[in-house]
């Protein structure tokens, strides 16, 4: 986690962070399970019985893992210099693309995403970038909408063009 942010955190910090995150998730599961019957009801174990115990086990195992890392973790680098920036250069545009899909449809965000990634991250020429950004959504349209009949997300542009 810390390794993702600044590349400052070592491998050990990341290991402990991951184990604590798992324990935290276990705590959420236990908390959620406590809103139900965690014991015995008229139909056997209640709705919270199973998740309550799974959550407790998860907290236990993750705490053990974190403890082991603190006591006997291997120091070292979590990632090579420059790696967090490269991962972010892929992750952030993907997140924007994914978030834009529901309101704007699949095709326009996909074109912009592919164009951005080809130009900015891969440093391809304009011609190649445009080729990828246009050919791939077009191929998707033919494959999914026309041939297989499985619709992708539609946005205002598709609506204006009457493709639905």
């Amino acid at each position: 986690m810390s390794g993702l942010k600044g590349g400052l955190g070592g491998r050990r910090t990341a290991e402990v962070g991951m184990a604590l995150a798992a324990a935290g998730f276990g705590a959420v599961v236990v908390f959620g399970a406590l809103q139900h019957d965690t014991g015995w009801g008229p139909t056997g174990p209640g709705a919270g019985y199973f998740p309550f115990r799974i959550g407790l086990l998860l907290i236990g195992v993750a705490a053990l893992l974190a403890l082991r890392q603190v006591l006997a973790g291997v120091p070292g680098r979590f990632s090579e210099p420059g790696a967090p920036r490269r991962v972010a250069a892929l992750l952030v545009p993907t997140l924007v693309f994914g978030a834009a899909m529901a309101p704007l449809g699949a095709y326009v965000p996909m074109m912009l995403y592919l164009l951005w990634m080809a130009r900015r991250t891969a440093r391809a020429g304009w011609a190649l970038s445009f080729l990828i950004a246009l050919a791939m959504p077009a191929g998707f349209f033919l494959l999914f909408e026309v041939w297989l009949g499985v619709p992708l997300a539609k946005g205002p542009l598709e609506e204006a063009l009457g493709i639905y």
Partner: protein
Amino acid sequence: MEGLAALLHGFEVALTAYHIGLMVVGVLIGILVGVLPGLGAPNGVALLMPLTFFMPPVSAIILLSSMYWGALLGGSTTSILFNIPGEPSSVATTFDGHPMAKQGKAAEALSLAFLCSGFGALVGVITITIVADDIADFALRFSPAEYFAVYLLAFCAFIGMGGSDPLKTAVSLLVGLSLATIGMDTVSGEMRLTFGQDQLVRGISFLVAVIGLFGIGELLSTADETEKVEGIRARVRLAAVLRTLAEMPRYTVALVRSAAIGVWMGLTPGGPTAASFMSYGVARRFSKRRENFGKGEPEGVVSPETSDHAAGVSALLPMLALGVPGSATAAVMLGGLMIWGLQPGPMLFQDKPDFVWGLIASMYVANLVAVVLVLATVPIFASVMRVPIGLLAPMIMAICISGAWMVSSNGFDVLLAIGFGVVGYMMKKLDYPIAPMVLAMVLGDKSEDAFRQSMLMSRGDLTIFWSNWLVGSITTLALLLLAWPVLSWLLRSRAQDSRRIAE
């Protein structure tokens, strides 16, 4: 001979023009998926799943399983030519396959890998044909207690024998089991762990999780690494294939041993990855040319490839007969079965013989199709790897994102898949195994139901899991496997102590 008649009927189902066409399409997509980074077999099957909702189940499973065979072969191709395993189960193939390719024996390494894969697959599917009915009959005697014991065995086998850090495997499993409980409880109808979010009522789809964990996570890992891809060009000529085929008898011992390891690891939930590593390790220990291993020894290609495919194929039997998948890909297919409205388990063999035997018959044909196709198309698919990863990764990402949308036409799923991608990337970096999480997500509801039904039968008495010899031995075996990491550590330190005293 009941099995033979059933198999012949299966061939009638499998050998239609439509189904052979599906096999060819499935294998070709599979090879591509196996070659491309970020698109492994589990993720490929998950991405194709929404397209199969409108097909008859038998056609759907033929398409998906054919894709699986293709992906296994595609994974071996990149292992040998690029030293990049396209599939986790092809890692062991890089040890000797890539050195062989570097020595100018790429064509030999490739044809050896494909032919051995074919042999392993054949042994796997013959085993399935012979034992399928017996295992199904055996499983008919299972009550919920036995089912829970079998699920427990699957989970414990991953922790004890999976090869990863047992604590990290346990975390991965438990997170998967927790994720499976999200949404409506099947028994009481209560909303669990939704915290008032409408999006979570349906639960978290394992397809979305697989696309994120295996696909997006893998792509983020690729961006993390900068190693330059240096491939070796290869064209496989018919003469080279025939020469390799003529040399196959030389490896009889390795072939038979590796196939046996593979079938065993596929039937028990060890999976193809563990099988290929184990087979390579055993070969290195017992081979006459053991000092040549790691430097381009053909037996180092034969052993993992044969096991990989034998395990991949035989992993489908426990999935069908018991509802316990032997590999991550089989787990995704099991989820598919339930989406298509089929109940995996022994009743499937009685209620849907067309489906079961059509699939088994298709495995004979599709594996043959796969070996022939991969031999013919290796140069074409290998050229895909020469596209710079900076251009390739966003395109594969667009496929994953669209696939996550298609699961249920929902924007929330897309963001969830990206979230799983970040988790998968972290898990990969910190050596957490991902397959147990997927297995637990698919089996979570079923194992909880089995547990609750057992508890109802016994009025809360846990000794029901030792109430007869069958359930008792499965449960005990499961607990032994769970304790295995601790036991082996104790034994090892005891041995070291006694050695020290002896000295």
